[in-house]
């Protein structure tokens, strides 16, 4: 029959009173909440499961808090601009909506650029999952070399508390040795000279042992390659407590050699860090692709204030706010506490 005879005032809405798009987006967002809960929850568990004060501190893994804070500001501003864009398009102001959408896109790009800087710095310092020196403390050291065990205890590397991997420790020493030999054989190709080259030769001498001293243990090698921290003074520097000087020392002597650093639980840390921030960056990138598509369409053919476009900006805005919220939690969990 014809629809004119249907009495619409008696039609009962049985479903949830939101549009299909909004329903779909919220369903998607709750699945994304579970996805990030898996990643962040695992990080939280792993961190809680390590002995006290053993988790790498931010400086040891080249984490700069101000960069994370800057990224947080960038995302917060971009959330603000996208919500204003939606607000503008509901009022029919297409031009302003496009401008604000462009601003959101630009800020998202800034976020990714800052992230790229951070990742590059990490790779340059050898902070890569699976490739850091880790678990080098042999529990037997407590009996075979008590002086060393006492030294390690001060650095919270008590033998027997952290897992030990004999094969991995020797592999670490061998890796460092191979790299040092390559550097010493051809310093020019590796851009190493001066103080750093001398350090490379000294380290090689330590690893191979000399007439008057035996080859050093993997953990002793690791301590020499350890980045200086404020928390635990490193006895391998002339003044263990002068942090700034030690850092300059490290950057000039050991930095250019690009060796695997020794950070207890460093591999666990870097796996968590790259998994969380990597997936988050992919989500940011996905959002940027969608924004780009809308922007290009809007710049070419305009963004009239119809139901479709209003809904589009609202729903992509929802996704973008979710991405912002994930970063709001990632930033303190990774950079601050």
């Amino acid at each position, binding site marked *: 029959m014809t629809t004119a005879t249907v009495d619409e005032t008696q039609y009962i809405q049985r479903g*949830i*009173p*939101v549009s299909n798009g*909004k*329903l779909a987006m*919220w*369903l998607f967002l*709750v699945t994304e*909440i*579970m996805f990030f*809960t*898996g990643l962040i*929850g*695992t990080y*939280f*568990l*792993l961190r*809680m*499961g*390590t*002995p006290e004060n053993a988790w790498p501190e931010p400086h040891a893994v080249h984490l700069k*808090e*101000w960069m994370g*804070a800057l990224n*947080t*500001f960038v995302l*917060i*501003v971009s*959330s*603000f601009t996208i*919500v*204003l864009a939606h*607000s503008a398009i*509901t*009022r029919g102001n297409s031009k302003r909506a496009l401008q604000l959408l462009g601003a959101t896109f630009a800020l998202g790009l800034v976020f990714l650029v800052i992230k790229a800087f951070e990742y590059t710095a990490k790779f340059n310092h050898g902070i890569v999952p699976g490739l850091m020196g880790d678990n080098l403390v042999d*529990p037997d050291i407590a009996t075979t070399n008590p002086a060393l065990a006492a030294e390690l205890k001060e650095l919270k590397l008590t033998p*027997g*508390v*952290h*897992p030990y991997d004999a094969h991995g420790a020797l592999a670490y020493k061998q890796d460092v040795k191979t790299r040092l030999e390559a550097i010493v054989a051809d310093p020019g190709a590796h851009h190493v000279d001066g103080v750093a080259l001398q350090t490379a030769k000294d380290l090689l001498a330590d690893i191979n042992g000399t007439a008057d001293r035996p080859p050093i243990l993997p953990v002793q090698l690791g301590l020499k390659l350890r980045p200086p921290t*404020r*928390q635990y003074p490193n006895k391998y520097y002339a003044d263990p407590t002068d942090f700034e000087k030690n850092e300059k020392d490290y950057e000039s002597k050991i930095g250019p050699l690009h060796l695997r650093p020794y950070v207890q639980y460093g591999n666990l840390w870097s796996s968590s860090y790259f998994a969380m921030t990597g997936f988050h960056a992919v989500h940011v990138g996905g959002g940027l692709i969608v924004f780009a598509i809308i922007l290009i369409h809007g710049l070419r053919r305009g963004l009239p204030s119809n139901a479709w476009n209003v809904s589009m900006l*609202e729903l992509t*805005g*929802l996704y973008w*706010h*979710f991405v*912002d*919220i994930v970063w*709001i*939690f990632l*930033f*303190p969990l990774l*950079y*601050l*506490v």
Partner: protein
Amino acid sequence: MSEPHTTPHADASHAEHAHEEHISDKTFLKVFVALFVFTTFSFLANQLFGRSAVVLAFIIIMGIAVCKAALVVMYFMHLKIDWRKVFVFVVPTLILAPLIVIVLWPDIVLAWRLAPMP
């Protein structure tokens, strides 16, 4: 701007359709400024006593993070108005999410503390 709301407390019973209630740009600006201030606070808290008073810093910083997330969810994501429509998806998620952590806690966190390392 259509009728600017001085406060965001739109009463649902007075509106016939959900689109009548909306959050004004001014409110968005206030929320944005609050987010900015909170972020600065948490960064400063970390710089000033992040190392010396670890537990206090953790509570303050994570508390601030939860407040920021709540502000974004309620105002930017419009849940202050839409909550009654979408809570049925969000509530099970918010129950399951901590549950993952709780379920794995004994094996990943406690086990290392209870059993001595070989």
